[in-house]
Structure formats: C-alpha cells, structure tokens
C-alpha cells in the first residue's frame, strides 16, 4: 500500500513535470487551441464515472449524480475536441 502510493505520487510528479516542460515554449498563436485541447483532456474524469457507476448501489440519488457526471464529462470531451478541431482547421489551411 505504502509503496504503491509513493509510486503513484512519483508518476504524478513526472507527468506534471513533462506537461510543464512540453508546454513551456509554446508560441502565443497556439494558446487557444492548447487550452481548448487540454480542456477536452480534463474530461478524462469520465473514466472515474465509468468505474464507479456499476458499484454505486441502490441509491437512486447517487446514481443520478454519477449520470450527471457522465453527461458533463462526455460534453467536455466531445465538445472540447470538436471545437479544438475547428480552431486547428483554421491554422492548418495557412500551411
């Protein structure tokens, strides 16, 4: 348990570090698509909703709350990627 938790923390640190390093030199032109794209990625919390949905038990209220989370996260993912695609399409035709 202890060792796994530390490993998870290490992964968290490494991922944050990689994220910081990869993005730190991004040109201003791409700030919006980056934000919109990473915004879509934050909808990945959908995974958590999928994992807990079958185990939510008898409570109808909790089930509805998970369904709301699923709706929100799906909107975030699908809408986010779709709009990022739209923005990047505009940059692409300049090439």
């Amino acid at each position, binding site marked *: 348990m202890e060792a796994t938790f530390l490993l998870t923390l290490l992964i*968290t640190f490494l*991922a944050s570090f990689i994220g910081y390093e990869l993005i730190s030199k991004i*040109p201003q*032109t791409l700030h919006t698509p980056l934000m919109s794209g990473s915004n879509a990625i934050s*909808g990945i919390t959908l995974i958590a909703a999928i994992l807990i949905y079958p185990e939510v038990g008898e409570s109808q209220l*909790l089930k509805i709350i998970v369904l709301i989370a699923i709706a929100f996260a*799906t909107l975030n993912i699908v*809408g986010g990627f779709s709009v990022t695609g739209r*923005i990047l399409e505009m940059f692409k*035709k300049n090439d």
Partner: protein
Amino acid sequence: MIEIILLVSSVLFIFALKLFGRPSTAHRANTFAMLAMALAVFSAFNFDFSKYDPAFYITIVVSGLLGVLISKRVQMTQMPELVGLFNGFGGGASGAIAYVELSKSTLPLSDYFVAIFSMVIGVFTFSGSIIAVLKLRGKLNNVNTTIANIFSAFLPPLILLPSIWDDMEILTLEYFMLLSLIAGVIRVAVIGGADMPVVIAFLNSLSGIAAMSAGFIVNSIILIVAGALVGASGIILTLLMCAAMNRTLLDVLKGGFGGTTLNNEYEKDPISTSPEDVAIQLSYAESVVIVPGYGMAVAQAQAAVKELTNTLKDKNIEVKFAIHPVAGRMPGHMNVLLAEVDIDYEDMFTLEDINSEFSSTDVVIVLGANDVVNPLARTDEDSPIYGMPILDVDLAKQVIVIKRSMSPGYAGIANPLFINDNAKMLFADAKEGLENIIKSFELV
C-alpha cells in the same frame, strides 16, 4: 491487455501535448489526444459492457451529440465562453464523482482527504466557470470586492463549525460542497473582464487537478497522468498571462482591478482624422503594423481586417500584426480570430518580437486596444499599469487609433498615446471604421 492499452494511451497523451506546441503539427495533436482518450475510456469498461444499463449509454450518446452540436454552432468570437463552459463541465464532473465516493462509507482515510480536495476543487471550477461564462457574455457586471472579503474572513469559522456536528457526516459533505460552490461564484464575480485570460487559464488548470485527484480515488493511473498534464499546462498559461500584465496570480484573483474610471482627463484635444485621410496616409506607407484588441472581437471586425490587409499587400505594403499576450478574453484569442479569416500566422508577432520594430514602422493601426498600448506603463510609476509590458506603438512614425470614443480601457486611466503628436484618432466602431477606409481606397 488493459495495462498495454493504458500505456499506449498515456504515451499518446504526452505526444499530443508535444505536438500542440508547433503550428505545423498542432492539428495532428488533436487527433492523437482523441485517440488517447478513446483508448482510455474504452479500457475503463474492462471488456465488460453488460454491467451498464440503458440509462448509462443513453446519457453518453445524448451528451456526446449535444457536445458536437454546441461546438459546431458557436461563433469564433464566442470561443472564450465555450472553453469556459466545457471547462466548468469537466470540473463539475470530477466534483460529482468525488461526492459520490465520499457518500459511500467504504473509503479509506487517505482517500477521504483526496476526495474532499477533488470535490472542493471540482465544484469551485464548476461554479467559477459558469460565472466566468456569464461575465464573458456581458450578463454580469463586476461585483464589489467587499462581499468577497467578508466571505473569505468568515470561511475558517464556516469550515470549523460543521466539524462540531461530526455525527452527521453527510451534512458536512454537502456543506463543503455548498461552500465551494459559493467560493467559486464570489471569487470569479469580483474579477474584471480584461483579467479573464488569467481566470480561464487558471480554471482550466484546476479542472485538470480535480481530474487528477479523482484518479487517486478510483486508482486510475491514466486519469492521474492526463489530469496532471492538463494541470501543468494550465498553470503555465496562467503564469504567462500574469507576467504579461506584470501582476501576480494572487493579485488577479483578489479582484477589484479596473472597471472604474480613475482618470480620463487630457491636456489637449486629440487630432481627429477621416477614413479618406487614413487611406491616403496608408497608401504612402511601406510598412504597417495592426494592433488588434478586444474591440476587434466585439465589433466582429476580423473580415474587414483581412480585406484591408489584402488591399495593402496588393500595393506592396508590408503588413504585420502585433498581438499582446492578454489582448482579448482568453490566451491567444486574437490569433484565433485572425486565423479564422485566413491571416497567416507567420504575420502575427508577439510583443518581444515586434517591439524593436515599431520605431521603423510607418503606420501603426490600433484597433480596439487600449491599455496594452498605453505608454504610461513605461513612464508613470503611480499608474496602476506601471511595469506592464506594452506594445511600444508610440515610437512608430504615425499611429492611427480606431476607437469609438476617448473612454478609458479596463484600467480606467487616460491613454496619452491618443494625444501624442504622431497619433490621430478615427472615431468609429472597429468594423465600420475599417470598411470606410477600404471604401476610400477605391477613390484614392
């Protein structure tokens, strides 16, 4: 098998983030990220799709379709609102998941605190983003900071109080949720419109952090990795935006900046000009730099900008765009609007790249920008914008400011650029003004 899928997904996410960093590869980044997301979501089912009832699948399909619909219909000028809205949804989802996990009594103590954290951050992101969207839509004015200060002062007792009622655990949870909700509303409500690039980037980062902590609760490495990537990239944008205003994040979040007129008195009257004169002035120029600001977005003047650019380029006049990092209402807002009308990103320049060129520029057109070209930032130590990096347009040979009136910008102060000897004002709406200049060109 699941582990391999998740490994591939993590690597794809990291590659996607790398590809986002260059204009030529950015469109591939989106594809990579989508693929990574699809793999990650697929793996969450663990090949057992029968565990899920119709309500589950219907929710996914309906909200997915709704997401596509919204994203296709929205106009480019409304992009800050849309990013804010989706961001709020992501945060809200993480908050709701944390709440459900906390409601189950089986959570170990270490996870309990992570879940509380995830809920607070998620709910704060949700309510804060909704308020940000309302502000961006102009539906909500600045709220007095006193309310926020009173709330912050009462927050510690408000948190300590429920711990006395520890026999009613659920009540405490909802109480925490309510407090986070109110905190999000109040915190964003006191921040003014032109600080929105910071707010949007900051909320974006928070939604990543909320997702990351949700990953700790459900023991999902991919969730932690993706959440951390988003959290880190959001922080970078937040700090970049703060640096561009020479203010700290805390100072921005404290709110109360701008929105009120501090000083709008001028020693002399500005020189007013006409579209015809501007057209003549431009036709004699060899180099022109256009400085777009939020006024261009409000007036939807992008197409007119493109037309003027074409007219000038046809006359062999060099046209460049100087974009301040916080111009507009989200990071990179002006770049997106210009890209929408096919302006080459090679022609868009950052503050660092173009500032040395102004002194050799014939004509600068300031289009709906104000504080980011105010020379007081360099000279007046008492000014609220002192020290903020600005575009040094006052050094150019001639400056044309297209603006509806002499009213001050967000910082609420007079802009001496407008009465500079080399500056002329064209009093018009950004779009109308440009269109009249273009029309005058046909007569020149």
